[in-house]
């Protein structure tokens, strides 16, 4: 799984967007909830102060601690209240604890100033200010709401309700957990949809990309791609790619046509030498026959020497013609050692400068699963080029041998070196370096090597020019093996 692939990046991005949105929204909601929680508590506290006040005024008036406590105490019915619970304290007009929801912590009669917390401050402030609204105070672990109690206009005491801040947090966490659960339940299907949607969006792109990879490795003729068709950019890309593919196919066809033409042209070039090669033995044979007739009119049987000469001449003709026939047929079949020898046969027909030599080393002893025609053409092109590059007394050496899993072809000559400037453009089309050349020979050679997945290297210096080609030998498939067996049988 490559994370860089759009197949994952688009769905992951969508899912990420969903999660980010949920997190931001959830955070904002949580913050708002927390604020509301506190606001609700304050409102509740203010209502509680209001509802407790009359009872407490009554209790303070009659010094009825019990009555005050019944108003302030925690609910005792049923389950105990969750800790920490709210705190409620009533102070009398002297600032002494009158009653509280926690009588052990706020003992009846204790002075407010002696209590831990803001009690003394609250008492002083509220006794002096005649505030209608309750005072709010955050101090330590509590949020305090305090209200002065007035009986017939006189200050009669103070009522304070304290909410533990930890209680807000506990409640807030509870809400967060519940909200988080709901959010997750909502997110799960949205995330799945996001993932699915993202995959759908990425799929045409992925498809196109696969198709492009296939176009590079597979034969264009047999390439079949179901390309995305849409009005969007990817659809446009697909259409352009289709056009590109069509262009490539056209180019490939053109190339094949050119290869064929060039092969035929090479055969044509060879034809003159071949004709000469045939003409020589034929002439020799005709002269020999004529001479024999002239001297031996009565004899019915030709002498052994004459027959042998005729036989050799005919064999030479047969070899030359059969090599040429194979060359022009171009059928798809495996490379055999004979193919390499055939090229040598064809080349030997060419006229060489005086004292020049073609050294041919065929190291191939068994057929290889390489297409014969392009290999022959590569060898023929390079060797004929080399032969044309040498002068009198110079040599062309051709070596063909399997090396590991590859077939290596080396064509070397000690003729005129290729100029350094020409080396760069050597394999480009229409870059002829000799008079009368089409400029296609080396380009076609290069294309053939590329098609076979091989490499071609050129080294040229004052001493020699070497074309070094390595072609990978494909592992023989079962079908190939069978065919070869059928052939040998």
């Amino acid at each position, binding site marked *: 799984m490559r994370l860089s692939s759009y197949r994952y990046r688009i769905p992951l991005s969508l899912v990420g967007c969903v999660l980010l949105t949920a997190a931001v929204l959830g955070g904002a909601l949580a913050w708002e909830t927390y604020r509301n929680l506190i606001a609700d508590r304050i409102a509740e506290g203010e209502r509680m102060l209001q509802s407790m006040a009359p009872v407490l005024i009554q209790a303070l008036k009659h010094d009825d601690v019990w009555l005050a406590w019944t108003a302030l105490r925690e609910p005792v*019915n049923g389950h105990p209240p969750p800790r920490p619970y709210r705190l409620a304290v009533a102070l009398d007009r002297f600032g002494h604890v009158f009653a509280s929801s926690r009588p052990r912590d706020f003992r009846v*009669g204790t002075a407010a100033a002696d209590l831990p917390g803001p009690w003394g401050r609250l008492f002083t402030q509220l006794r002096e200010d005649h505030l209608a609204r309750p005072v709010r105070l955050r101090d330590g672990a509590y949020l305090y709401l305090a209200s002065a109690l007035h009986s017939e206009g006189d200050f009669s005491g103070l009522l304070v309700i304290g909410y533990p801040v930890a209680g807000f947090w506990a409640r807030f966490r509870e809400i967060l957990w519940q909200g988080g659960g709901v959010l997750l339940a909502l997110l799960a299907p949205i995330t799945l949809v996001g993932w699915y949607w993202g995959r759908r969006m990425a799929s045409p792109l992925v498809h196109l990309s696969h198709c492009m990879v296939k176009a590079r490795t597979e034969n264009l003729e047999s390439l079949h791609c179901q390309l995305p068709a849409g009005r969007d950019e990817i659809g446009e890309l697909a259409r352009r790619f289709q056009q590109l593919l069509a262009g490539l196919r056209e180019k490939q066809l053109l190339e094949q046509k050119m290869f064929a033409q060039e092969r035929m042209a090479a055969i044509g070039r060879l034809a003159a030498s071949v004709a000469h090669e045939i003409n020589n033995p034929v002439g020799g044979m005709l002269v020999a026959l004529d001479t024999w007739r002239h001297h031996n009119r009565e004899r019915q049987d030709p002498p052994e020497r004459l027959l042998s000469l005729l036989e050799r001449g005919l064999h030479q003709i047969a070899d030359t013609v059969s090599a040429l026939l194979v060359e022009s047929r171009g059928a798809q079949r495996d490379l055999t050692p004979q193919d390499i020898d055939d090229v040598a046969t064809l080349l030997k027909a060419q006229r060489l400068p005086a004292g020049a030599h073609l050294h041919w080393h065929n190291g191939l002893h068994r057929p290889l699963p390489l297409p014969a025609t392009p290999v022959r053409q590569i060898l023929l092109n390079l060797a004929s080029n080399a032969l044309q590059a040498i002068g009198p007394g110079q040599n062309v050496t051709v070596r063909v041998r399997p090396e590991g899993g590859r077939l290596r072809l080396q064509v070397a000559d000690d003729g005129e070196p290729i100029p350094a400037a020409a080396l760069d453009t050597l394999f480009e089309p229409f870059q002829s370096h000799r008079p009368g050349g089409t400029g296609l020979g080396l380009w076609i050679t290069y294309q053939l090597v590329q098609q076979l997945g091989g490499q071609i290297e050129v080294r040229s210096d004052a001493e020699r020019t070497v074309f070094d080609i390595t072609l990978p030998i494909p592992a023989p498939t079962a079908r190939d093996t069978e065919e070869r067996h059928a052939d040998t049988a």
Partner: protein
Amino acid sequence: MRLPTRHRPASPARRRLLRAGLALLAGGMAKGLPAAPEALRFGLTPVILDDQIGFLNDWRDWLASQLGRPVTFVQRLKYRDITEAMLREELDMAWVCGLPYVQTRPFMSLVAIPCYRGTPTYHSLIITRRDLPPVDSLLALRGRIFAFSDPDSNSGYLYPTWRLHRAHTTPQAFFGKVFFTWAHRNTIDAVAAGLADAGAVDSYIYEEYRRHHPDVVAGTRVVERSPAFGFPPVVARDDLPAEDRAPFQQALLNMEHTPAGKALLSRLGLDGFVPPRRELFADIAAMWTEMSGSDGLQRAT
């Protein structure tokens, strides 16, 4: 209308709701008054755990079936309210504390006295918070916050005040702070919660409360136990006709002899009722007489 402490909820809304519900219930009782003029009106005070409405309804129905006439139960917050209702002839009978009986003896007659653990007597208990250092006497509680039940209660007020009087002091002078809770069970709650350091309660209520709420009572400790006093008696207006009084007395005395009556008694934690014995209240009367000459008794507002 008095609210039973155990059911007093925290929220004003719930309290209002409960109050409305109880008002309906009380309304039902009150409606019986004019509709059936022959109904016997029976007043109850917190000398028993009077918040067991189910029990009270069952007892009322049982009494009505025994008497062959409707019985109305009337409950009030303070002892004095019941006593005064008796004096105004708004009630025919009442179950009161020994002290109100002694105070209004000229206008009341004893009907029956409950029998608790074999005797028609009970005690006043001085209790403290369990977390207070243990002491063995009321007199060791100087400066503490002390809870009385009702100023007309013998065990919850007269006895401890008399004890202090004998020690030449008054509750206001001796204790740091005193207050009334208006019921023995409230005193137990106040002491257990730490609102008061100590209090005086009826031994019968204390034990009954322990039976129903052992967790609350566990927060208290008994430090002093008074001599035996006459158990809070059932009394009648002295001008109540004998035909109203006698069947009621008979029904109470017979309670322990009928299965249904015995079951009700066991819910009350009592053995039964015995015929009147005025001498049981002599000690209360003596304390009252001794105290009424002094300023030691605080009058409830």
